């Protein structure tokens, strides 16, 4: 099994002047995809510090959320700003990881973005329902990683969404109702390229759709 890879990207010792480096944990069992995502994050110019692991289990260890108390975290769980995880992985899927992270880091939930080659509404909704911040269709493109920064815990807060007509909700945290998210996404589709928060899943790259129904893979749900 591969060791944890750490890549410091960008100049200025990795720090953006006046800004903060965003620490991304990439989880993907494919070495090809891991390397490509690292390359994308580096090239985006958004000053990411990337750690990549090849399994959900390893991700849990790195985050300090592992059941096994003897595994000391390589990276302090508090020091990961975003988790970018593949959905289809053996043993612990991206969904399992998402669930575990949301359950166990509930005081300061770490944003989790799920990647998948399958454009399946059911899958996307399942992830969304348990708190995934976004869902990206593979293969990843440059503009997919550009909006990652807006999800970072330490990044500047994104512009607040317009309040719904009859909302009694107040608060400074970025909490969006499902309706707001859908609304933001609808607005977002018209303004492609603007990094608005909310649900977007794109498959503009998919020229050859596959039928995922009845798939026998280990993530056939």
């Amino acid at each position, binding site marked *: 099994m591969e060791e944890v890879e750490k890549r410091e990207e960008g100049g200025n010792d990795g720090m953006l002047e006046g800004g903060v480096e965003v620490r991304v944990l990439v989880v993907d069992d494919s070495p090809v995809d891991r390397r490509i995502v690292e390359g994308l994050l580096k090239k985006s110019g958004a000053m990411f510090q990337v750690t990549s692991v090849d399994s959900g289990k390893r991700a849990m260890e790195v985050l300090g959320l592992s059941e096994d108390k003897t595994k000391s975290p390589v990276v302090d769980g508090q020091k990961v700003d975003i988790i970018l995880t593949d959905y289809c992985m053996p043993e612990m899927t991206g969904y399992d990881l998402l669930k575990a992270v949301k359950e166990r880091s509930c005081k300061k939930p770490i944003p989790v973005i799920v990647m998948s080659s399958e454009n399946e509404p059911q899958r996307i909704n399942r992830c969304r329902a348990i708190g995934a911040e976004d869902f990206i269709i593979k293969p990843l493109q440059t503009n997919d990683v550009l909006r990652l920064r807006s999800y970072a815990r330490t990044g500047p807060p994104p512009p607040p969404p317009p309040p719904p007509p009859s909302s009694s909700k107040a608060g400074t945290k970025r909490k969006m109702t499902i309706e707001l998210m859908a609304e933001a996404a609808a607005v977002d589709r018209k303004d492609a390229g603007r990094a608005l928060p909310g649900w977007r899943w794109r498959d503009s790259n998919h020229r050859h759709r596959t039928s995922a129904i009845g*798939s026998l*893979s280990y993530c056939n749900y």
Partner: protein
Amino acid sequence: MSLMALRERLNVLVNSMFLEGLLDQQFRQLQMLQDASSPGFVAEVITLFCEDSERMLTELTKLLDQAVVDYQKVDAYVHQLKGSSSSVGAQNVKLACIQFKQFCEENNKEGCLSALNMVKHQYYSLRSKFDTMLQLEQRIQAYDSEQQN
């Protein structure tokens, strides 16, 4: 051969691969990620892809050689191979994997065997062109580092 001639040869090769459908636009994305700070990025990804693919093709051959085929395992490997070929822009390999998945879902052993052969055929065609590409890249890099000295 001059640096310019090497670059020209590489361009001609890559363009022909696009025209023949060996590569799609995703490969262009990878090329765009290569720059002065990561001059070997494309070569690195191609190498990873080839190692990974050959490992999976070996496993798939073993699995389909069994009297009773474990289609779930076969599908898992084909899914992975489809994913990585999609990520690097290896179009023909990806398309062959899609066909393969279909036969897998039908638990069709004959279909799977012929699909595996097709995937191998597409992969090895691509592989030989990737090899040439990597050699050209290396020679170009050598020039560039010479010029910096």
